[in-house]
Each structure stands twice: as C-alpha cells, then as structure tokens.
C-alpha cells in the first residue's frame, strides 16, 4: 500500500523512486532505483529517517576511521597542530607548522565526500551538508582550520535529525563557531577577566545567531535584543591548552590522553554542572573544548525578546537558546529552509505552515518535521518534480555517483566545486551557500558544468590516483600526481578510468531523461553519450 499523499501527486512510479533518490539522497548510484523499488518507497524513507537502521559497509567505516584528525577532539587538534612559536623544533618554521595542519581540512573534505558518494545513510549526509551550511563556519578563518572537521563530526552530524535545540547548543559551544563568529572574545566590560583584546561586548555571534541560525531576519528582534544576547553570551570560550613546553613524546601523550578523557565529559545542555571540570576562577568545561569563564561573564539580569532573564552564569545562555529554539519564528524559518531545500525554491506556504506546527508540537524534533515534509502531498506533486537546480556540490556528487566509479582521489571533485563557486568548507560568510536556482545558474556555470560532465563522462578525471599519502602525510607537500588539471583536459587526454558505459549510465538514472534528450543522446557518437547524459538539462535538476 502506498500512502495517499504519495499517490495523489500522480507521479509515475518510476519517477517516484528517482524523486526520493534525488531529494533525500545525492542522486542514484547504479542499482539504487531498483533497490528503492524492491524495498518500497515508504520503507526506504523510514530507513533513511533512522540512519542507525542502515548498516554501513565495513570498507567505508575503515576509510573514515583512517582519517585520524576527524576523530580528535578540538583540544587534541589544538595541542597537536597549533604549535606555539617557541616550541617549534629547530629548522621548523611557522609555515611548515601551518602546512602540517592542512591535513585537517584535507581529511574533513575526504570524509565528507566519501560518505556523500558511497555512504548508504544518504539522508543523514544530505542533512549534515544542510546543517553545516546553515551553521556555516569558514575553514580559512584563523583557528577554524583546526576544527572544521571536528565541528561537522561533533556538532553537526550527530544531531542532523535530532532536536534542533541540541544542534543549536552543540554549534554554539563548539570552538569552531566560538572562533568564527568571535564570541570567544565577547567579554563583559569591566569584568575581572576584561583586558587587552577582551575588553568588551562583541555583537557578531549574537546577531547572526538570531538572523541566520534561529529567528530569521524578520523574526522580530531589535538592536537592543542583539546587545542583550551578546551580554548573555559573554564568557563563552574554548580551551586553549598547549602541550608542555618541550615537546617530548610522553608529555605529549599525557596531554592527548587527558584531552581524550575529556571527551567522556561532553554534554551539551550544560546544566549538569557538577560533573564538569572546574577551572581556576570558578570556570568550567563541558567537554568538546568549550569552557565557561565567569571572570568574563556579565552576570546581570537581562531582558531578551521581552522576557526577563534573571542574573546568572552559563545558564543565562542556555535559557536564551531555549527561548530561541522554542520561538515560532525559528520554527517557521527552519521549516521554510527545509521546504526550500527539499521541495521548491518558493515552497508552498501551506506546507511550511504544517511543518512549523509539527516543529512546535514536537519541541523542535527535526525527524518529525522531515516526516511531515516527506509524506506531504506537496512533496509528491508533479509540479515539484525535477524543479530544484542542483548546487555545484549536488551536481558534482550526483554525477560521480551516477557513474559509479570508486573514488580514491577527491581532488578533481573539490576542484570542480571550487571552480563553480562553491568550495567545500570555503564559504567565507556566515549565511552559507544559497540553495536556489537564481543563485547558481549563470552562463559561466553552464560552461563549467558541461565541461565537468564531459571530463567525467569520458573517463578523464584522475579519480583513482592513490590518496594514501594525503591521508597519512603531514608534510603538506602534494605530489605532482595529486594536482590533476581539474577540468583543463587537453583534447587528447588519456583515459584514467574506464570510460563509463552509456547504457549502464542510462539505466542508473532510470526515467530521468525526456524524449528529446534521449534521442539526442543516442544520436551522438558513442564516446559522447555519457557526457551528454551527465550534462543534460534533466541532470542539472533534482
């Protein structure tokens, strides 16, 4: 039995499978359409909503496990990769130390792309990319380079389909966000800890927290609320603990072991203070690199969004986050963005309204909101089928998935994303990348997309060069083989992987192609059929 909401949209069954694979996943891989048909649409959706019910292949788990910086805490990362000048070994210079830390970004990129390409928990990956973008941090800003992978791994992925409040709290306290939006420097004026560059209030995070992360720009807050929230969030810092002065192995191991032990103390609501680690001056850590510094906190009572917040410490911030997460404005803002991502650039107002109600009724349970969305009639309407223009990320990932080539070297893919204006972890501004056709469709984008489709479809991208060096090597040197000409393919490029079989590719994408495209593909010379499928107007959309 298919739910009425699914049937009411009158999509042919073949397009239904493609629809969910294009929206809840990054497009079909070979065999995916058959698999969805076989286990049933609803079953497939339910599994995707509960990623733990889907087994991850051991090989994938091993590859992710081998990306060691993804599994280090913010503290460990700081100790290992933020070497203070005085501790640099002779002959080592600051640049070399910086170079070493580039492994963090490389591994974050590698982990994200491999999971998006090959991971069976596709919706979780879609939501991880969605929330990372929503709570964007920029790898190129200072210390964020140390924590970019940890931010996604610790603050985003675990909560991608959980409660919004938890996601919000995890991002608010992660060192990457504290650094990126300057809240770590936000200090109560004239407080005992106020000195030097930590003398007073910084509005940056408070404003973006309301404008971008929660209420939305029309969410009904004033400049006075920005300032009140900034005061409430003073004293929120991250742990900066260096390894002992002389870098000897045992001491380093001790520091790392300590940092590892701290992971056990991670908790994200900050209310169970008793189990947190005390600091001199009465501050404490709550795990994952966050610490609250009362010497820089403004304990005074505040009025925030018309509500009194009594004097207090870290709990003031928790209350403020509660208020923000519970707000109907937030429910609406989040619902709109989800509907815009999953349904249409201009999502139907009624659907957004129903999702907002679902958010409010379930205390911001994102899984329930998504459930409302996926089983809505609007989601299945024909007018919403294939109308989302893929972002560069979605285009590159979905094309590579469709070809089905096992990817070892992700650089040609990340290079293409960058050329298309969407470098992974490279969005400088806190609003993240847009998700609309208007933002991404341009003359240049079409030239670049079709060039990528051509290079990929002819088997010219060096996707199978070994990347072991990249996973292991801390030298920062990139062997020549690692620097493929991203899309600069000479006309007579040699094939670096077997040219994709156009018949197999056509089967993978199922009922995607319209009949004019279909005819154009089969009228083209054999070597150009796969590029045409990947570069077709239908493949630009999801």
């Amino acid at each position, binding site marked *: 039995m298919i739910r009425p909401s699914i049937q009411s949209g009158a999509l042919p069954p073949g397009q239904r499978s493609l629809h969910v694979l294009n929206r809840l996943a990054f497009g079909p891989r070979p065999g995916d359409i058959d698999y969805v048909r076989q286990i049933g649409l609803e079953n497939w959706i339910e599994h995707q909503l509960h990623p733990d019910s889907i087994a991850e292949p051991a090989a994938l788990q091993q590859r992710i496990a081998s990306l060691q910086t993804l599994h280090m805490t913010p503290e460990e990362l700081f100790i290992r990769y933020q070497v203070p000048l005085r501790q640099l070994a002779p002959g080592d210079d600051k640049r070399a130390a910086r170079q070493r830390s580039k492994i963090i970004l490389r591994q974050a990129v590698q982990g994200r792309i491999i999971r998006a390409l090959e991971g069976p928990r596709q919706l979780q990956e879609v939501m991880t990319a969605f929330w990372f973008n929503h709570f964007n941090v920029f790898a190129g800003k200072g210390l964020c380079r140390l924590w970019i992978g940890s931010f996604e791994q610790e603050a985003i992925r675990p909560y991608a389909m959980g409660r919004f409040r938890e996601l919000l709290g995890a991002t608010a306290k992660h060192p990457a966000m504290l650094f990126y*939006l300057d809240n770590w420097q*936000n200090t109560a004026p004239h407080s005992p800890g106020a000195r030097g*560059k930590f003398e007073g209030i910084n509005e940056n995070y408070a*404003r973006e927290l309301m404008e971008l992360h929660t209420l939305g720009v029309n969410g009904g807050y004033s400049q006075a609320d920005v300032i009140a929230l900034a005061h409430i969030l003073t004293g929120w810092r991250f742990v900066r603990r260096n390894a002992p002065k002389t870098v000897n192995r045992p001491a380093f191991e001790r520091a790392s072991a300590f940092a590892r032990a701290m992971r056990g103390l991670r908790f994200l609501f900050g209310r169970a203070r008793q189990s947190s680690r005390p600091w001199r001056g009465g501050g404490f850590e709550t795990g994952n690199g966050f610490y609250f510094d009362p010497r820089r906190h403004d304990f005074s009572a505040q009025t925030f969004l018309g509500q009194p917040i009594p004097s207090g410490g870290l709990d003031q911030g928790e209350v403020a986050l509660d208020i923000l997460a519970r707000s109907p404005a937030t429910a609406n803002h989040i619902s709109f963005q989800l509907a815009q991502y999953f349904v249409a650039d201009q999502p139907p107002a009624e659907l957004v309204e129903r999702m907002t109600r679902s958010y409010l009724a379930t205390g911001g349970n994102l899984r329930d909101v998504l459930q409302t969305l996926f089983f809505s009639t609007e989601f299945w309407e024909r007018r919403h089928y294939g109308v989302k223009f893929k972002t560069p990320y979605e285009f590159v990932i979905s094309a590579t998935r469709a070809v089905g080539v096992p990817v070892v070297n992700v650089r040609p893919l990340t290079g293409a994303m960058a050329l298309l204006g969407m470098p992974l972890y490279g969005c400088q501004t806190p609003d993240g990348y847009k998700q609309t056709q208007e933002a991404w*469709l341009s003359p240049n*984008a*079409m030239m670049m997309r079709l060039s990528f489709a051509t290079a990929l479809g002819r088997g010219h991208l060096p996707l199978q060069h070994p990347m072991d060096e990249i996973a292991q090597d801390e030298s920062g040197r990139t062997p020549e083989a690692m620097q493929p000409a991203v899309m600069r393919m000479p006309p007579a490029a040699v094939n670096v992987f077997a040219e994709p079989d156009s018949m197999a590719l056509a089967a993978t994408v199922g009922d995607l192609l319209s009949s004019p495209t279909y005819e154009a593909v089969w009228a083209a010379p054999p070597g150009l059929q796969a590029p045409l499928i990947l570069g077709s107007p239908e493949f630009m959309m999801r």
Partner: protein
Amino acid sequence: MHDRPDSRNSQIIGRREFIRAATLAASGAVIFGPHAWVARASSVVNSRKRLVLVFLRGAVDGLNVVVPYDDSNYYENRPSIAIPRIGEGAVLDLDGHFGLNPALASLMPAWKEGLLAFVHSCGSPDPTRSHFDAQDYIESGTPGIRTTPDGWMNRTLAALPGKHQPTEALSVGAVLPRILSGSMPVANVSGRGAARPLPLDNPRIERVFDRLYNGRDPLSKAYQEGRAARQRLLGELRQDMAVADNGAPGPEGFPNDAARLAWLIQRDSSVRLAFISLGGWDTHVNQGSIGGQLANHLKPLGYGLADFAKRLGSAYDDTVILVLSEFGRTVRENGNGGTDHGHGNVMWIMGGPVRGGRVYGRWSGLSPADLYQERDLAVTTDFREPIVQVLLTHLGLSAIQIQKIFPQRLTFSGHLSTILRG
C-alpha cells in the same frame, strides 16, 4: 563640499541633473520620447563609456578609509584602532579635514591628479544591520523591498542604447551576483584561468550540447549566453590570454581579477558594465590600525585599483569606477579591537571623467547628537545618488530611464551634480 543640508535641493532628481539630462538629449547623445529608436544608431559617441563597480562585501569600515582626522570624537571613540593624525603611519591628508588610510597610499597619485573623489556619510536609507539584507538592497537598488526580481545593473543594461553584445555586462567570479541578474543577457568569467581551454571548447562536443540547449528555458538561455561570451572573449584571443596567463592561473585576489578585467576591457570595447566583489571586511575583532587586518585588505585593493587604471590606458578616460559596501561600521570600537555593524559609509569614485581631489557629501559628524541611533555615522547621501550621476552624466541615460532603474522615490542631496565631467 561640506555644505549644509538644503531641502530645496531634495527633489526626486535634482533639477540641475534633469536639465543636464535634457541637454544631453538635445545634443543627440541620448534621446527619449517617440523617436528613441532613431538615436540608437547615432549613439556611438557614448558606446565606449563604462562603469565598473567594486563591491566590498562585509561592510568596510569607512571611517578608517577616509578618516575625519580633525574630529576629536573620532580619536575618543577609537582608542586602539584610530589612524593617527601625525607621526608614523599617519593619515595622508586629503583636504585638511579628511585623511586617507596610509594603506591606500597607492591611490594618492590619483587623488592628486584629481581623478579620485569620495562621498562621505553615504549609504542606504534602509536601517538594516544584516549584511545579507543590506547587500541585497544595494544590488536590487530598492532598499526595503525584498521582492525586486532583478538587479539594477541588469536594468541599466536594458536601458543602454545600441545592439547588445554578449559581453556588454560582465562579472568577474564563478557565480552571477544579484546586481547583474535579470532578463538581459550578461556574462560572468571566473577570475582564474578564464581563458584555459575547457573540454566543452571541442567543436564536436559543443555541437552535441548545442542540440540539448536550444530552447528558451533558463538553462538554455544561460548556456547560449555562456557560449556567446566565451566565443567573444576567447575565440581569437585565446593565444593572447594564454601568454598573459603564462599557461597557469595567477594567484587569487583583487589585483589579479582587476588586471584580467582590464585586459578584457582593453581588447573588447563592448564591455559597458563590469562588476567585481571582494570580501573580508567584517572586522569584528582585531581590525588593526595602521597595520593589521583592515590595512592588509586595503593594500591590495588600492594597489589593484591603481594598477587597473594604468592597465586600462586610454580606456581609463571613459571609465568610472565606484567602490562601495553595504553599510559602515560602529563609530566606537568594540571590546575586541574591532567594530560592529553600523550605518553610513564612504563611497569611492575614480576614473578619467571624475572631478576628483574632493570629498563630497554632507559630513554628518561624530558628536553623540549627530550619530544615527547614537552609535553610527548617519547617512546624508543615498548610495543611489552617485550612481544616478554616473548613469546620467557618464552613461548618458535619461531621467525617465533612470526611474525604471531606481523606481522608488529618491531624495537627493543635490551636492553631487558636479562630481563628473559631462
């Protein structure tokens, strides 16, 4: 220069501007009215004039760009980030009141030649302190209205006379900015390696894709515009560009993007409107004073602009460059050696036709009573006023055309009517 406000001058479009437009119309450069079509062929006079817009995304701190160094409030509000009046790293005096940030020393020759001007206390009438809303308003040209579907540069393109060329409006960057989006065809080129051969350049491959994208839908339209621009920009000039690029993409950054743009304009005189944006101005912490973050961003910008002017050669005589940002920053420095989101800012105007060497606009002052919402530089000149001057005087558009580009009722100071040589 620092005139007092005069309400008589605040009209929809200053009377003098209107007269100027009418004069231009009479001279045949621009004609509106029933015989507009006659003018198209004869408008070659203006066909090389161009506007280059440099958008500083993230809100540059205008008070540290053009510094009111004779105002003690400036120094009182900015104990650690002010640009000193005298001594090492002091401001470069402009007019006895304002001084230029020394990081922009490379622009002083332009100032002295009289080809660089500033408009202070300039900005958007909309009070938002959201970067994204404010940028959107600057680009749509309709502050306060979110639903405007297109950008004002696209609407300007529609108003330009003559046969439209695929590269008449050009953006440097991988994505098309809001300001250029709309119904008129535009081109965007990525800053790096724009001329490198792509797989798509193979005629065999082009042909098959031509067949797929031959409709009038948005994707086909983008494809066709991309093909046309690529052919025009790169067709016969590919060798040339490859030499210029020395076979490899240069480093990223404004000076290189600007150099490429200059290169394109020199070789393709059909470029009338160009757009470049650069980020990194949101200095909430450690903004620095004579050194540091802001200075490090200003240096390549100043150098890049000076170099751009040089590379344009004689084309510079026909080029006006506007540099602007979505809003300014707080007068008072914050607790972290930075500044937060503010309101009024300074606009830069540079180029052959500019009557420079002056700071235009009504300076609104920094005493507590002068500030906008008790914290920010007030706006006394709408950011559209200098733009309208350029459209009228430089690009030769008519008041009626301008009303289509900026449809809201505009209140103008009237202080800028002499900023360009007609």
